[in-house]
Protein backbone atom coordinates (compact mmCIF):
# COMPACT_ATOMS: atom_id res chain seq x y z
CA UNK A 1 0.00 0.00 0.00
CA UNK A 2 2.85 2.28 0.87
CA UNK A 3 4.37 1.56 -2.53
CA UNK A 4 1.07 2.43 -4.18
CA UNK A 5 1.04 5.91 -2.66
CA UNK A 6 4.68 6.46 -3.48
CA UNK A 7 3.97 5.58 -7.11
CA UNK A 8 0.97 7.91 -7.17
CA UNK A 9 3.01 10.77 -5.75
CA UNK A 10 5.90 10.10 -8.14
CA UNK A 11 3.57 10.34 -11.13
CA UNK A 12 1.99 13.48 -9.73
CA UNK A 13 5.41 15.10 -9.23
CA UNK A 14 6.62 14.06 -12.66
CA UNK A 15 3.54 15.55 -14.34
CA UNK A 16 3.66 18.72 -12.33
CA UNK A 17 7.32 19.23 -13.16
CA UNK A 18 6.53 18.67 -16.82
CA UNK A 19 3.67 21.15 -16.81
CA UNK A 20 5.81 23.78 -15.08
CA UNK A 21 8.63 23.33 -17.58
CA UNK A 22 6.19 23.70 -20.47
CA UNK A 23 4.69 26.76 -18.85
CA UNK A 24 3.71 28.42 -22.12
CA UNK A 25 1.14 25.68 -22.58
CA UNK A 26 -0.56 26.49 -19.28
CA UNK A 27 -0.35 30.22 -19.83
CA UNK A 28 -2.09 29.96 -23.19
CA UNK A 29 -4.91 27.86 -21.72
CA UNK A 30 -5.44 30.32 -18.85
CA UNK A 31 -5.43 33.26 -21.27
CA UNK A 32 -7.95 31.44 -23.41
CA UNK A 33 -10.20 31.14 -20.33
CA UNK A 34 -10.00 34.88 -19.65
CA UNK A 35 -10.70 35.52 -23.33
CA UNK A 36 -13.79 33.31 -23.04
CA UNK A 37 -15.17 35.48 -20.22
CA UNK A 38 -14.69 38.53 -22.43
CA UNK A 39 -16.32 36.84 -25.41
CA UNK A 40 -19.30 35.81 -23.29
CA UNK A 41 -19.87 39.44 -22.36
CA UNK A 42 -19.60 40.58 -25.98
CA UNK A 43 -21.99 37.91 -27.17
CA UNK A 44 -24.62 38.10 -24.46
CA UNK A 45 -25.47 41.50 -23.09
CA UNK A 46 -24.39 44.99 -22.10
CA UNK A 47 -26.76 44.98 -19.15
CA UNK A 48 -24.52 44.72 -16.04
CA UNK A 49 -27.36 43.39 -13.87
CA UNK A 50 -28.10 40.54 -16.28
CA UNK A 51 -24.40 39.66 -16.56
CA UNK A 52 -24.16 39.63 -12.76
CA UNK A 53 -26.92 37.02 -12.64
CA UNK A 54 -25.32 34.92 -15.36
CA UNK A 55 -21.81 35.13 -13.91
CA UNK A 56 -21.79 31.70 -12.14
CA UNK A 57 -22.86 29.90 -15.32
CA UNK A 58 -20.32 31.75 -17.43
CA UNK A 59 -17.55 31.03 -14.94
CA UNK A 60 -18.26 27.30 -15.04
CA UNK A 61 -18.52 27.23 -18.82
CA UNK A 62 -15.11 28.86 -19.01
CA UNK A 63 -13.77 26.30 -16.50
CA UNK A 64 -15.24 23.44 -18.54
CA UNK A 65 -13.71 24.65 -21.80
CA UNK A 66 -10.28 25.34 -20.34
CA UNK A 67 -10.32 21.96 -18.56
CA UNK A 68 -11.08 20.08 -21.75
CA UNK A 69 -8.09 21.76 -23.39
CA UNK A 70 -5.71 20.59 -20.70
CA UNK A 71 -7.37 17.16 -20.39
CA UNK A 72 -7.03 16.40 -24.08
CA UNK A 73 -3.28 16.88 -23.69
CA UNK A 74 -2.99 15.18 -20.32
CA UNK A 75 -1.68 11.92 -21.74
CA UNK A 76 0.38 13.24 -24.66
CA UNK A 77 3.76 12.23 -23.22
CA UNK A 78 2.46 8.80 -22.30
CA UNK A 79 1.19 8.05 -25.80
CA UNK A 80 3.73 9.88 -27.94
CA UNK A 81 6.93 8.78 -26.28
CA UNK A 82 5.83 5.30 -25.26
CA UNK A 83 6.01 6.30 -21.60
CA UNK A 84 2.84 4.37 -20.87
CA UNK A 85 4.46 1.01 -21.60
CA UNK A 86 7.56 2.18 -19.80
CA UNK A 87 5.65 3.01 -16.64
CA UNK A 88 3.86 -0.33 -16.69
CA UNK A 89 7.12 -2.19 -17.31
CA UNK A 90 8.56 -0.49 -14.24
CA UNK A 91 5.77 -2.14 -12.28
CA UNK A 92 3.53 0.87 -11.86
CA UNK A 93 0.07 0.01 -10.61
CA UNK A 94 -2.42 1.21 -13.28
CA UNK A 95 -4.58 2.64 -10.52
CA UNK A 96 -1.62 4.63 -9.23
CA UNK A 97 -1.16 5.96 -12.75
CA UNK A 98 -4.81 7.01 -12.78
CA UNK A 99 -4.66 8.60 -9.34
CA UNK A 100 -1.44 10.48 -10.08
CA UNK A 101 -2.93 11.83 -13.29
CA UNK A 102 -6.12 12.69 -11.44
CA UNK A 103 -4.15 14.74 -8.91
CA UNK A 104 -2.37 16.61 -11.70
CA UNK A 105 -5.61 17.36 -13.53
CA UNK A 106 -7.30 18.44 -10.31
CA UNK A 107 -4.39 20.79 -9.59
CA UNK A 108 -4.65 22.25 -13.09
CA UNK A 109 -8.43 22.77 -12.91
CA UNK A 110 -7.98 24.46 -9.53
CA UNK A 111 -5.32 26.66 -11.06
CA UNK A 112 -7.72 27.71 -13.83
CA UNK A 113 -10.34 28.45 -11.17
CA UNK A 114 -7.86 30.52 -9.21
CA UNK A 115 -7.36 32.78 -12.23
CA UNK A 116 -10.88 32.76 -13.67
CA UNK A 117 -12.72 33.35 -10.38
CA UNK A 118 -11.13 36.77 -9.63
CA UNK A 119 -11.49 37.73 -13.29
CA UNK A 120 -15.17 36.83 -13.08
CA UNK A 121 -15.50 38.92 -9.92
CA UNK A 122 -13.90 41.88 -11.68
CA UNK A 123 -15.77 41.63 -14.97
CA UNK A 124 -19.17 40.91 -13.49
CA UNK A 125 -18.94 42.91 -10.27
CA UNK A 126 -19.12 40.18 -7.62
CA UNK A 127 -17.73 39.91 -4.11
CA UNK A 128 -16.42 36.45 -3.35
CA UNK A 129 -17.44 34.76 -0.07
CA UNK A 130 -15.14 32.13 1.46
CA UNK A 131 -17.83 29.45 1.37
CA UNK A 132 -17.32 29.31 -2.39
CA UNK A 133 -14.19 27.22 -1.87
CA UNK A 134 -16.03 23.98 -1.12
CA UNK A 135 -18.13 24.07 -4.26
CA UNK A 136 -15.16 25.00 -6.41
CA UNK A 137 -13.15 22.08 -5.06
CA UNK A 138 -15.96 19.53 -5.38
CA UNK A 139 -16.85 20.69 -8.90
CA UNK A 140 -13.22 20.53 -10.00
CA UNK A 141 -12.88 17.07 -8.48
CA UNK A 142 -15.90 15.93 -10.53
CA UNK A 143 -14.37 17.29 -13.74
CA UNK A 144 -10.96 15.77 -13.00
CA UNK A 145 -12.32 12.35 -11.94
CA UNK A 146 -14.34 11.55 -15.05
CA UNK A 147 -12.08 13.68 -17.23
CA UNK A 148 -8.92 11.74 -16.37
CA UNK A 149 -10.54 8.38 -17.08
CA UNK A 150 -11.97 9.49 -20.43
CA UNK A 151 -8.80 11.31 -21.42
CA UNK A 152 -6.88 8.09 -20.77
CA UNK A 153 -9.36 6.09 -22.87
CA UNK A 154 -9.31 8.43 -25.83
CA UNK A 155 -5.60 9.28 -25.71
CA UNK A 156 -4.50 6.31 -27.79
CA UNK A 157 -6.17 7.29 -31.06
CA UNK A 158 -5.93 10.39 -33.16
CA UNK A 159 -9.63 11.23 -33.29
CA UNK A 160 -9.71 10.90 -29.52
CA UNK A 161 -9.22 14.61 -28.96
CA UNK A 162 -12.35 15.26 -30.99
CA UNK A 163 -14.32 12.60 -29.19
CA UNK A 164 -13.31 13.57 -25.65
CA UNK A 165 -15.66 16.56 -25.24
CA UNK A 166 -18.50 14.61 -26.85
CA UNK A 167 -18.09 11.79 -24.33
CA UNK A 168 -17.18 13.90 -21.34
CA UNK A 169 -19.57 16.86 -21.35
CA UNK A 170 -22.85 14.88 -21.24
CA UNK A 171 -21.43 12.89 -18.33
CA UNK A 172 -20.56 16.11 -16.52
CA UNK A 173 -24.06 17.64 -16.76
CA UNK A 174 -24.78 16.92 -13.06
CA UNK A 175 -21.47 18.55 -12.09
CA UNK A 176 -22.26 21.61 -14.19
CA UNK A 177 -25.77 22.02 -12.76
CA UNK A 178 -24.69 21.45 -9.15
CA UNK A 179 -21.63 23.69 -9.38
CA UNK A 180 -23.44 26.55 -11.07
CA UNK A 181 -26.28 26.45 -8.56
CA UNK A 182 -24.01 26.18 -5.53
CA UNK A 183 -21.88 29.04 -6.84
CA UNK A 184 -24.92 31.19 -7.55
CA UNK A 185 -26.31 30.51 -4.07
CA UNK A 186 -22.97 31.21 -2.41
CA UNK A 187 -22.64 34.52 -4.26
CA UNK A 188 -26.14 35.44 -3.08
CA UNK A 189 -25.07 34.51 0.49
CA UNK A 190 -27.51 31.58 0.54
CA UNK A 191 -29.93 32.82 3.16
CA UNK A 192 -32.11 29.72 3.14
CA UNK A 193 -29.42 27.02 3.15
CA UNK A 194 -30.41 25.68 -0.26
CA UNK A 195 -26.82 24.73 -1.05
CA UNK A 196 -26.92 21.58 1.06
CA UNK A 197 -28.94 19.45 -1.38
CA UNK A 198 -26.80 20.46 -4.37
CA UNK A 199 -23.60 19.84 -2.43
CA UNK A 200 -24.83 16.39 -1.42
CA UNK A 201 -25.57 15.53 -5.04
CA UNK A 202 -22.12 16.78 -6.04
CA UNK A 203 -20.46 14.67 -3.34
CA UNK A 204 -22.50 11.65 -4.48
CA UNK A 205 -21.35 12.18 -8.07
CA UNK A 206 -17.70 12.54 -7.05
CA UNK A 207 -17.82 9.43 -4.87
CA UNK A 208 -19.56 7.22 -7.43
CA UNK A 209 -17.27 8.20 -10.26
CA UNK A 210 -14.07 8.18 -8.22
CA UNK A 211 -14.78 4.61 -7.10
CA UNK A 212 -16.02 3.56 -10.56
CA UNK A 213 -12.98 5.05 -12.29
CA UNK A 214 -10.57 3.43 -9.83
CA UNK A 215 -12.30 0.11 -10.45
CA UNK A 216 -12.06 0.41 -14.23
CA UNK A 217 -8.61 2.00 -14.27
CA UNK A 218 -7.10 -1.33 -13.24
CA UNK A 219 -8.04 -2.93 -16.56
CA UNK A 220 -8.31 0.12 -18.81
CA UNK A 221 -4.97 1.69 -17.94
CA UNK A 222 -3.21 -1.65 -18.06
CA UNK A 223 -2.06 -1.06 -21.64
CA UNK A 224 -1.85 1.97 -23.81
Amino acid at each position, binding site marked *: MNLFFRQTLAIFRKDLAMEVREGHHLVSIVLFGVLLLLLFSFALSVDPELMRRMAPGLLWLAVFFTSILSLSHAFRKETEDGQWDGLLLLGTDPRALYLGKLMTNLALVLLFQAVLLPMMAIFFDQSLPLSLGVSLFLGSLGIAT*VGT*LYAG*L*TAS*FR*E*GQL*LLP*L*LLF*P*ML*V*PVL*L*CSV*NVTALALAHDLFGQQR*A*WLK*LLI*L*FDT*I*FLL*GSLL*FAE*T*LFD*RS
Partner: protein
Amino acid sequence: MFVLSVIAAAFFAFAEYRGLFIVPPDRMMGDVYRILFVHVPSAWMSMLFFLLSFVGSAGYLIRRSPAWDRLSYCAAEVGLVMNGLALFLGSVWGKPTWGVWWTWDPRLTTTALLFVMYSGYLILRRLINDPDRRAKVAASVGLLIFLNVPLVYMSVKWWRSLHQVQSNPNSMDPSMVVSLRLSAFAFLAVCLLLLIFRLRLAKKEADLEERLSLPPEGPGAPRAPQSKVTT
Protein backbone atom coordinates in the same frame (compact mmCIF):
# COMPACT_ATOMS: atom_id res chain seq x y z
CA MET B 1 -36.97 -15.88 -39.11
CA PHE B 2 -38.82 -14.79 -42.24
CA VAL B 3 -42.14 -16.05 -40.86
CA LEU B 4 -41.51 -14.28 -37.57
CA SER B 5 -40.74 -11.04 -39.39
CA VAL B 6 -43.97 -11.26 -41.40
CA ILE B 7 -45.98 -11.96 -38.23
CA ALA B 8 -44.35 -9.02 -36.43
CA ALA B 9 -44.97 -6.70 -39.38
CA ALA B 10 -48.63 -7.74 -39.59
CA PHE B 11 -49.06 -7.32 -35.84
CA PHE B 12 -47.42 -3.90 -36.01
CA ALA B 13 -49.64 -2.83 -38.91
CA PHE B 14 -52.76 -4.03 -37.07
CA ALA B 15 -51.85 -2.27 -33.80
CA GLU B 16 -51.08 1.02 -35.54
CA TYR B 17 -54.18 0.77 -37.77
CA ARG B 18 -56.32 0.29 -34.68
CA GLY B 19 -54.65 3.27 -33.00
CA LEU B 20 -55.06 5.49 -36.05
CA PHE B 21 -58.59 4.70 -37.20
CA ILE B 22 -60.63 2.69 -34.72
CA VAL B 23 -59.93 4.22 -31.29
CA PRO B 24 -62.01 7.41 -30.67
CA PRO B 25 -60.36 10.85 -30.83
CA ASP B 26 -59.38 12.63 -27.63
CA ARG B 27 -61.76 15.17 -26.10
CA MET B 28 -59.15 17.90 -25.76
CA MET B 29 -56.54 17.11 -28.37
CA GLY B 30 -58.63 15.57 -31.13
CA ASP B 31 -56.62 13.40 -33.48
CA VAL B 32 -53.25 14.84 -32.49
CA TYR B 33 -53.03 12.54 -29.50
CA ARG B 34 -52.81 9.49 -31.78
CA ILE B 35 -49.06 10.02 -31.96
CA LEU B 36 -49.16 8.55 -28.45
CA PHE B 37 -49.37 5.09 -30.00
CA VAL B 38 -45.94 5.45 -31.57
CA HIS B 39 -44.29 7.99 -29.29
CA VAL B 40 -44.84 6.25 -25.96
CA PRO B 41 -43.87 2.76 -27.14
CA SER B 42 -40.70 4.07 -28.78
CA ALA B 43 -39.73 5.84 -25.55
CA TRP B 44 -40.38 2.67 -23.56
CA MET B 45 -38.39 0.58 -26.01
CA SER B 46 -35.45 2.96 -25.88
CA MET B 47 -35.35 2.63 -22.07
CA LEU B 48 -35.72 -1.16 -22.28
CA PHE B 49 -32.95 -1.55 -24.83
CA PHE B 50 -30.59 0.80 -23.01
CA LEU B 51 -31.23 -1.37 -19.97
CA LEU B 52 -30.38 -4.44 -22.07
CA SER B 53 -27.23 -2.68 -23.22
CA PHE B 54 -26.29 -2.09 -19.59
CA VAL B 55 -26.92 -5.76 -18.83
CA GLY B 56 -24.61 -6.61 -21.73
CA SER B 57 -21.87 -4.31 -20.39
CA ALA B 58 -22.16 -5.72 -16.88
CA GLY B 59 -22.24 -9.25 -18.27
CA TYR B 60 -19.08 -8.61 -20.24
CA LEU B 61 -17.25 -7.21 -17.23
CA ILE B 62 -18.16 -10.31 -15.22
CA ARG B 63 -17.83 -13.01 -17.86
CA ARG B 64 -15.43 -11.48 -20.41
CA SER B 65 -17.17 -13.20 -23.30
CA PRO B 66 -17.62 -11.40 -26.66
CA ALA B 67 -21.30 -12.42 -26.83
CA TRP B 68 -22.13 -10.09 -23.93
CA ASP B 69 -20.25 -7.29 -25.64
CA ARG B 70 -22.24 -7.83 -28.82
CA LEU B 71 -25.49 -7.76 -26.85
CA SER B 72 -24.37 -4.50 -25.28
CA TYR B 73 -23.78 -2.59 -28.50
CA CYS B 74 -26.51 -4.15 -30.62
CA ALA B 75 -29.07 -3.28 -27.94
CA ALA B 76 -27.57 0.21 -27.69
CA GLU B 77 -28.04 0.69 -31.44
CA VAL B 78 -31.71 -0.35 -31.36
CA GLY B 79 -32.22 1.77 -28.24
CA LEU B 80 -30.63 4.78 -29.91
CA VAL B 81 -32.93 4.50 -32.94
CA MET B 82 -35.97 4.30 -30.66
CA ASN B 83 -34.64 7.17 -28.55
CA GLY B 84 -34.25 9.38 -31.62
CA LEU B 85 -37.72 8.40 -32.80
CA ALA B 86 -39.24 9.21 -29.41
CA LEU B 87 -37.55 12.63 -29.34
CA PHE B 88 -38.65 13.44 -32.88
CA LEU B 89 -42.25 12.32 -32.37
CA GLY B 90 -42.46 14.03 -28.99
CA SER B 91 -41.35 17.26 -30.61
CA VAL B 92 -43.96 16.88 -33.38
CA TRP B 93 -46.61 16.31 -30.71
CA GLY B 94 -45.39 19.13 -28.49
CA LYS B 95 -45.80 21.85 -31.11
CA PRO B 96 -49.62 21.65 -31.50
CA THR B 97 -50.21 20.65 -27.87
CA TRP B 98 -47.85 22.80 -25.80
CA GLY B 99 -47.21 25.36 -28.52
CA VAL B 100 -43.45 24.74 -28.50
CA TRP B 101 -41.16 22.21 -30.16
CA TRP B 102 -39.09 21.79 -27.07
CA THR B 103 -39.36 22.34 -23.33
CA TRP B 104 -36.73 21.79 -20.65
CA ASP B 105 -38.71 19.15 -18.85
CA PRO B 106 -36.48 16.72 -16.91
CA ARG B 107 -37.59 13.70 -18.91
CA LEU B 108 -37.04 15.40 -22.25
CA THR B 109 -33.69 16.77 -21.22
CA THR B 110 -32.52 13.43 -19.86
CA THR B 111 -33.67 11.68 -23.04
CA ALA B 112 -31.75 14.16 -25.19
CA LEU B 113 -28.63 13.66 -23.06
CA LEU B 114 -29.03 9.89 -23.36
CA PHE B 115 -29.06 10.33 -27.13
CA VAL B 116 -25.74 12.18 -27.02
CA MET B 117 -24.17 9.78 -24.51
CA TYR B 118 -25.06 6.61 -26.42
CA SER B 119 -24.02 8.20 -29.73
CA GLY B 120 -20.65 8.89 -28.13
CA TYR B 121 -20.51 5.30 -26.89
CA LEU B 122 -21.13 3.94 -30.40
CA ILE B 123 -18.64 6.33 -32.03
CA LEU B 124 -16.01 5.37 -29.45
CA ARG B 125 -16.42 1.72 -30.44
CA ARG B 126 -15.76 2.51 -34.10
CA LEU B 127 -12.41 4.10 -33.24
CA ILE B 128 -10.83 1.15 -31.41
CA ASN B 129 -9.47 -1.62 -33.61
CA ASP B 130 -8.45 -4.30 -31.13
CA PRO B 131 -11.62 -6.30 -30.28
CA ASP B 132 -10.58 -7.11 -26.68
CA ARG B 133 -9.63 -3.56 -25.89
CA ARG B 134 -12.78 -2.27 -27.58
CA ALA B 135 -15.01 -4.53 -25.53
CA LYS B 136 -13.33 -3.56 -22.26
CA VAL B 137 -13.49 0.18 -22.94
CA ALA B 138 -17.07 0.03 -24.21
CA ALA B 139 -18.29 -2.03 -21.27
CA SER B 140 -16.80 0.44 -18.77
CA VAL B 141 -18.17 3.45 -20.59
CA GLY B 142 -21.58 1.78 -20.93
CA LEU B 143 -21.67 1.09 -17.22
CA LEU B 144 -20.66 4.64 -16.30
CA ILE B 145 -23.31 6.12 -18.61
CA PHE B 146 -25.97 3.99 -16.98
CA LEU B 147 -24.80 4.96 -13.48
CA ASN B 148 -25.01 8.58 -14.51
CA VAL B 149 -28.63 8.51 -15.71
CA PRO B 150 -30.25 8.88 -12.25
CA LEU B 151 -27.80 11.66 -11.35
CA VAL B 152 -28.54 13.54 -14.57
CA TYR B 153 -32.26 13.11 -14.06
CA MET B 154 -32.14 14.29 -10.46
CA SER B 155 -29.99 17.34 -11.18
CA VAL B 156 -32.10 18.41 -14.16
CA LYS B 157 -35.24 17.95 -12.11
CA TRP B 158 -33.94 20.18 -9.31
CA TRP B 159 -32.77 22.71 -11.83
CA ARG B 160 -36.32 22.98 -13.24
CA SER B 161 -38.13 22.61 -9.94
CA LEU B 162 -38.71 26.36 -9.58
CA HIS B 163 -40.84 26.65 -12.67
CA GLN B 164 -42.29 23.33 -13.66
CA VAL B 165 -44.52 24.02 -16.63
CA GLN B 166 -46.84 21.29 -17.68
CA SER B 167 -48.44 18.15 -16.48
CA ASN B 168 -50.63 15.87 -18.46
CA PRO B 169 -53.28 14.10 -16.43
CA ASN B 170 -55.67 12.13 -18.58
CA SER B 171 -58.26 9.60 -17.96
CA MET B 172 -58.08 7.47 -21.02
CA ASP B 173 -60.82 5.63 -22.80
CA PRO B 174 -60.37 1.88 -22.19
CA SER B 175 -60.02 1.24 -25.91
CA MET B 176 -57.12 3.72 -25.98
CA VAL B 177 -55.39 1.81 -23.21
CA VAL B 178 -55.81 -1.44 -25.13
CA SER B 179 -54.44 0.20 -28.25
CA LEU B 180 -51.47 1.63 -26.38
CA ARG B 181 -50.63 -1.80 -24.98
CA LEU B 182 -51.03 -3.41 -28.40
CA SER B 183 -48.71 -0.80 -29.89
CA ALA B 184 -46.18 -1.37 -27.15
CA PHE B 185 -46.12 -5.11 -27.84
CA ALA B 186 -45.91 -4.47 -31.58
CA PHE B 187 -42.92 -2.22 -30.99
CA LEU B 188 -41.38 -4.80 -28.69
CA ALA B 189 -41.75 -7.49 -31.37
CA VAL B 190 -40.18 -5.30 -34.05
CA CYS B 191 -37.34 -4.18 -31.79
CA LEU B 192 -36.58 -7.72 -30.68
CA LEU B 193 -36.41 -8.80 -34.32
CA LEU B 194 -34.11 -5.88 -35.09
CA LEU B 195 -31.93 -6.93 -32.16
CA ILE B 196 -31.80 -10.55 -33.32
CA PHE B 197 -30.87 -9.57 -36.88
CA ARG B 198 -28.26 -7.15 -35.58
CA LEU B 199 -26.81 -9.78 -33.25
CA ARG B 200 -26.47 -12.27 -36.11
CA LEU B 201 -24.78 -9.64 -38.23
CA ALA B 202 -22.46 -8.76 -35.33
CA LYS B 203 -21.53 -12.43 -34.92
CA LYS B 204 -20.63 -12.63 -38.61
CA GLU B 205 -18.64 -9.40 -38.37
CA ALA B 206 -16.73 -10.76 -35.39
CA ASP B 207 -15.97 -14.04 -37.19
CA LEU B 208 -14.77 -12.14 -40.24
CA GLU B 209 -12.62 -9.86 -38.11
CA GLU B 210 -11.03 -12.88 -36.48
CA ARG B 211 -10.37 -14.62 -39.79
CA LEU B 212 -8.82 -11.55 -41.32
CA SER B 213 -6.50 -11.13 -38.38
CA LEU B 214 -5.13 -14.70 -38.70
CA PRO B 215 -2.43 -15.59 -41.23
CA PRO B 216 -3.64 -17.81 -44.14
CA GLU B 217 -3.29 -21.53 -43.36
CA GLY B 218 -1.34 -23.40 -46.04
CA PRO B 219 -1.49 -22.91 -49.81
CA GLY B 220 -5.17 -23.84 -50.27
CA ALA B 221 -6.57 -21.60 -47.56
CA PRO B 222 -8.57 -18.51 -48.51
CA ARG B 223 -6.28 -15.53 -48.37
CA ALA B 224 -6.99 -12.48 -46.35
CA PRO B 225 -6.79 -9.26 -48.39
CA GLN B 226 -3.45 -7.65 -47.60
CA SER B 227 -2.64 -4.02 -47.85
CA LYS B 228 -0.08 -3.34 -50.53
CA VAL B 229 3.44 -2.81 -49.28
CA THR B 230 5.35 -0.25 -51.27
CA THR B 231 9.00 0.37 -50.68
